[in-house]
């Protein structure tokens, strides 16, 4: 493995650490400071509010659904894009990144235009069958899937390309069926790429704010998610509680990342 000469290694290390510290590390420290500014008082106040606890449950539920759906979609799409040929493949590949470029204001508007119960394209007919999308869980899950759609795909595709399909072809020539190849050769090989993608998707889903503000209706104690509670607390002069809830949200993501990091085998270093 190529290794940099010592001074170069230190220079890169310093630049990276300084950049990350100034951009993310220090803001994170500030968040923690603000959350604990009154000791545990902000946390106590926040958690004695049933709206806050409910919002955290809603957020976690919605996020787990979005993660599950996006992982299945992401792995499947990654395999389709890399291992197969079909008409329109390049167009599809470009379209998959598109959802990330859509402003949350527009996402909310788009979903509303199609699924709202009064005059949406599909909304009224869906509601006459009892399926309520907007201002309800399905719409919120969709909005969350929307914002995180490409994450798993884009982690999986480069790794699939890098490892090539030699092993898969070998397995097939030895008589393994398609599902067996998938289960025993492909998926284990892309395991950590999938895990990165899942962790990113989870973190993104937990923190989603703009699109959910529009699609959820912000119903206190019902469809209000934790980020929305944070805004409400802040706007109602309960800053301490806002920071406390934010801290919890970030903590959940960080814990997931930590668990993954501990489970992962160490990378080779020169």
């Amino acid at each position, binding site marked *: 493995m190529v290794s940099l000469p010592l001074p170069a290694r230190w220079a890169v290390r310093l630049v990276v650490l300084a950049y990350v510290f100034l951009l993310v590390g220090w803001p994170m420290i500030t968040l923690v400071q603000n959350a604990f500014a009154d000791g545990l008082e902000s946390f106590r106040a926040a958690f004695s509010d049933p709206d806050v606890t409910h919002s955290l449950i809603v957020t976690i539920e*919605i996020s787990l*659904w979005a993660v599950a759906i996006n992982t299945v979609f992401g792995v499947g799409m990654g395999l389709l894009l890399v291992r197969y040929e079909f008409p329109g493949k390049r167009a599809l590949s470009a379209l998959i990144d598109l959802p990330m470029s859509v402003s949350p204001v527009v996402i909310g508007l788009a979903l*509303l235009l199609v699924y*709202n119960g009064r005059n949406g394209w599909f909304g009224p007919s869906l509601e006459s069958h009892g399926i309520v999308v907007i201002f309800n869980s399905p719409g919120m899950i969709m909005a969350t899937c929307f914002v995180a759609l490409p994450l798993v795909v884009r982690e999986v595709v480069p790794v699939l390309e890098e490892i090539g399909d030699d092993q898969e072809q070998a397995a097939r020539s030895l008589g393994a069926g398609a599902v067996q190849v998938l289960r025993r050769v492909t*998926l284990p090989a892309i395991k950590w790429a999938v895990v990165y993608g*899942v962790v990113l998707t989870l973190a993104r889903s937990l923190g989603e704010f703009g699109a959910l503000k*529009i699609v959820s209706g912000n119903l206190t104690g*019902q469809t209000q998610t934790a980020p929305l509670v944070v805004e409400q607390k802040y706007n109602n002069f309960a800053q301490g509680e806002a920071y406390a809830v934010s801290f919890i949200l970030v903590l959940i993501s960080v814990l997931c990342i930590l668990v993954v990091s501990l489970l992962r085998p160490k990378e080779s270093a020169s």
Partner: protein
Amino acid sequence: MTQRNRFLALAAAALAVPAILSGCAASSGASSDSDKLSVVGFSVLKTANEPVISAFQKTGAGKGVSFTTSYGASGDQSRAVAGGLHADEVHLSLQPDVQSLVDAGLVDKSWDQNATHGILTDSVVVFLVRKGNPLHIESWDDLVKPGVKVITPNPASSGSAKWNILAAWAHAEDAPGGSDAKAQEFVTKLLHNTVALPGSGSDALASFLAGNGDVLLAYENDSIEAKAAGDDVDYIVPKDTLLIENPAAVTTDASPKAQDFLDFQLSKQGQTLYAKAGFRPVISGVKTDVPGANDPRNPFPKVPHLYTIDKDFGGWDKANPEFFDDTTGIITKIIAGLNIGS
């Protein structure tokens, strides 16, 4: 399947049941139930409404009534209700946000034909300044002095920000020797002094509290709450300012309890509770101490020269398009022609 994927699938499945159940429950709650009221209001109402709702629930009419609430920026809330968000009562920042619901057939045309013309809470435009008012800002003319840094929410993206700009306009137009042209000049100068145009009143307050600007064009009720919460600010009620009128309406398919609730909010008890949250009462005879006010014993000093949207601007139906239309609005054109902040 890796351990982690397996775990996630299990977790997702485990949560599938409650998620689906909550989905069904929310959709079945859409029909009006005489024991459930859905109130949709603008953001600051969250803290103000809590005591009002519990007081109502202690009355005969309110016994056993449970509430669903949603709070957010007035425009967002109005659009949500128009888009299907179930509401028995809406309490918004300004009349046009209710008018759009009338146009959508969700609120009856006669909503504003009660004793208070549909208004539920009042406030006035004030100047929020740093504690001690170091720049001695007392009047609108002080705001256009060179070097004064003003913050106001953007009237294009925040309905409630329109009150601020119209107040400034009214001041210049009503001054001796004033005219439309003078008003336009005044607002232009004011916007030249503006260092930030956040999207909503709450954002503007947050920006000010973070240290931006010298003065914030704010609402009296927000300012009182900010002081009560211990923020390092003072507020000045100028000698001439605009009356902010927040309308409330019961929707067309609302439960009958909604009207009971609205009546309660308009009663002495309801208005007293709103006064404690910093809102000026819309009925007479309400007297109470208001923590956070400049003088808690006399929280709502009479404004010598109080402009109103109806008297001075011909009502929102005329003023909204005249000033704020996307392309032809007077204020829209001023903003479009400026290079603010340069």
